[in-house]
């Protein structure tokens, strides 16, 4: 089951990543609200979110080609 795989992959994330992913993806909190609720800088929220999503993507798709780290430029717009 796709959902079962997702839950399993979700369980493999760190507690911090799970919390941020749940609050933003499911509860639809804003980044600022999550930062305030967890008492961490907004940049920390964003990096946990990015790392969590990327890890989830790799697990879900068996993809080892990890994307860039949070905060790294992807390249300029032509």
């Amino acid at each position, binding site marked *: 089951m796709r959902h079962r795989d997702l*839950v399993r992959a979700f369980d493999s994330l760190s507690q911090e990543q799970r919390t941020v992913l749940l*609050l933003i993806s499911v509860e639809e909190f804003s980044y600022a609200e999550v930062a305030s609720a967890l008492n961490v800088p907004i940049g920390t929220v964003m990096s946990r979110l990015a790392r969590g999503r990327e890890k989830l*993507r790799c697990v879900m798709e068996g993809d080892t080609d990890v994307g860039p780290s949070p*905060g*790294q430029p992807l390249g300029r717009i*032509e």
Partner: protein
Amino acid sequence: MTTHRPIIEDDLHAYIDGELDIERQAAVAEYLKGHPEVARRVDCYRRQRNALREVFAPIAKEPLPPALNLVRIVEKRRGLRAVRWQAVAAAFLLAVGMVAGWGLSENFRPLPAGIGALAREATENYAVYAPDRVRPVEIREAEVLARWAERRLSRPISVPDLSASGYRFMGGRLVATPHGAAVLFMYDDAEGTRIVLLSRTMGVDRDARMAPHAYGILGGFAWADKGIGYSLVGPVPPRVLEPIATAARKQLDGT
């Protein structure tokens, strides 16, 4: 255009979560058109977001595993905001004569025009601003708010500290009433329950003893001192609210 900042990884997530301003949103969309491999990844994140919602949203109301304690706390806050505040606002707007500790008991007395009008204005402003998730207050710093309000209302303004009663100052704003500009302070407790204190210059009832008022499930206490009226409003029972109103009044009298 090349005038934009480079797109970074964080932008992709902010793009998915609707956190970007319109200009940046457009810049990311433009970038994705030229970078199909990144676009695929963004699409994957988006599907992942929807899948998480499908999986977890139905159980959001059920008890969460202990590992998610923090989520439960925040979920509780969300619940308060999403459900209780909306219910409060709806209950008020429907003007249902419900009684929740307030209402047709001995606490309920129609208040004289001046204080009665003030009580109604405070309750109306509560219904508008307290349920607001995005911007319940305009200014968070007590001193900045006081300076602004002093300039606009041409009188000294002090912000009562209700932390001893368990209510934290969230901020405030100037609001309009049929009797001129008023200043609204908002506070919340550890559970996220919000109360407001509205204050304006009084035309009548320039000095009035503290008296309870109630509209629907929103109760309050209003009083006036030396031409300035105050009304403290919240969805809490009178026995809880009265000592808080008394604490506020003492502080305001002392200034």
